[in-house]
């Protein structure tokens, strides 16, 4: 087991009424423990495009080394807050060569295990909750390998974001029993984190990510 796998984020149980305090800078988060999640650049040789591998050989990406993750369950919903430094935010796609900041949480669909480095495989699909700055609503995607992510037209996941003081704060929330992921299996579930820095042109597989699952413990 790697150090990253040993990381555990424990979701606190809050009263349903406190969900209103779980916005990006909501007061309820101040009572909970935020874990630093180490991030690494994705391997260039795993990018499923010879063009991307060639074009990015001399470019730098995935330099965000850490993000903060906090988890809470309030009422029937799971709330996950990601925070990271973004001194040059890209809050929207405004031109051909502008890429928006983005972040995603990844879960094995069976709630137990799946290969993280390939975004699942045919026998072990994964689900991503994907936020992109300026998009308005999150995307929920299932994948069975690199380049296979397919978006759902309808899903119950919500997101709220805020950029302040050089930092993004993004809260994902979804009902525990309706999101498509086995979020309650065995009281814990592996989760992965990915963050894209728009200012560096990061998109697709070019990102900072957790190279191994971390554990999200549910109350």
């Amino acid at each position, binding site marked *: 087991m790697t150090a990253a796998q040993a990381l555990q984020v424990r979701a606190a149980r809050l009263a349903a009424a406190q969900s209103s305090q779980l916005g990006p800078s909501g007061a309820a988060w101040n009572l909970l423990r935020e874990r630093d999640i180490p991030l690494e650049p994705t391997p260039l040789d795993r*990018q*499923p*495009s*010879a*063009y*991307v591998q*060639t*074009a990015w050989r001399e470019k730098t990406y995935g330099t965000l080394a850490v993000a903060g993750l906090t988890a809470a369950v309030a009422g029937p919903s799971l709330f996950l807050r990601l925070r990271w430094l973004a001194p040059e935010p890209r809050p929207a*796609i*405004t*031109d*051909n*060569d*502008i890429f928006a900041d983005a972040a995603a949480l990844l879960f094995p669909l069976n709630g137990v295990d799946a290969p993280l480095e390939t975004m699942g495989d045919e026998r072990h699909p994964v689900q991503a909750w994907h936020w992109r700055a300026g*998009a308005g609503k999150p995307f929920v995607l299932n994948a069975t390998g*690199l*380049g*296979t*992510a397919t978006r759902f037209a309808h899903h119950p996941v919500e997101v709220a974001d805020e950029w302040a003081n050089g930092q993004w704060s993004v809260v994902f929330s979804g009902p525990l029993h309706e999101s498509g992921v086995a979020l309650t299996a065995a009281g814990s579930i592996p989760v992965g984190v990915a963050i894209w820095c728009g200012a560096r042109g990061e*998109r*697709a*597989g070019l990102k900072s990510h957790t190279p191994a699952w971390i554990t999200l413990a549910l109350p």
Partner: protein
Amino acid sequence: MVTAPLPTRQLAMVFDLNKCLGCQSCTIACKTLWTEAPGMEAMWWNIVNTLPGQGTPRDVFAHGGGYRDGLPVPGDFPPVREWGEAWDFDYAGTFASGEERRPVQPLGKSGEPPSWGPNWDEDLGGGVYPNSYFFYLQQVCANCSKPACLEACPRDGLYRREEDGIILIDEERCHGYRFCAEACPYKRIYFNPARVIAQKCIACYPRLEAGVAPACVRQCPGRVRHVDYMDNREGHPYRLVHEWKVALPLRPDFGTEPNVFYVPPLAPPAFNAAGEFDDTASRIPMDYLRELFGPSVDDALATIQREREVVASGGQSDLMDVLISRDWNDLMGPFTQNPSELDRQQARA
């Protein structure tokens, strides 16, 4: 990555640069048919630019992409202002100015006048009088046989149709990463910011499926464009490309093997210092034409010159007959269906 089967047939086009009027009828035919939806305002899937000139986007062939020695060449995707915004015009400013003469000014989204646009350097041309020259270059997606766009996409967002080799973007799969637009050396892929997807010329495939030629082909008053499947040995593309060898790929050094070919412009001879024709010198510098169309351009122009002289001396030239296409249906290969006579319900079915 999914390995797609090679197409069983390849649609091909030939554009005769000696016949283009620069009227942009093709451009408008395409625009009104395909790119009027929100997010597509600045798209010109078909574009005609004056050469020598910088093209659309500015310095069109200097943005990388394609292949060198078989390896992908990194490219960039210029911002919209380098292509030309869908600008508006300041009518209110003109009418309210009180000035006697105040031309209507174009205004970009920023409120500033645009600094580039489609065919921005229209008719400026090159050379020094009396050896000045220009010609028009028409561009659509070339549906390359080695498509850098398709191979650049990390999620198989583009595919090549098995039945005709047309390359399409799967708008459900496209996530707007824009690697395809960087990788296209001809810069024929646009980005739709409203939908966050890439979009490009689709060769009017719904028309082709109904036997109708692409709008840019059918609406061309200069009869510039020939279209057919390349495997039809009686078709104009095959005859012009492989039989007569007078139609050449644009910038073959990009390595993508495009399926749009060009009959290079045959200019009058240059004037010498005495003001007389010098039959040994082209008014359009041959080095420039070789850069655009490769080293075969000398032989192609010699063939066209020779066949023109045959006709000029009262003879008959099969090549000139094909290029002239007195019956315009001959330009359109198997796609001669008149769209106004089409049973649209049947076509949809």
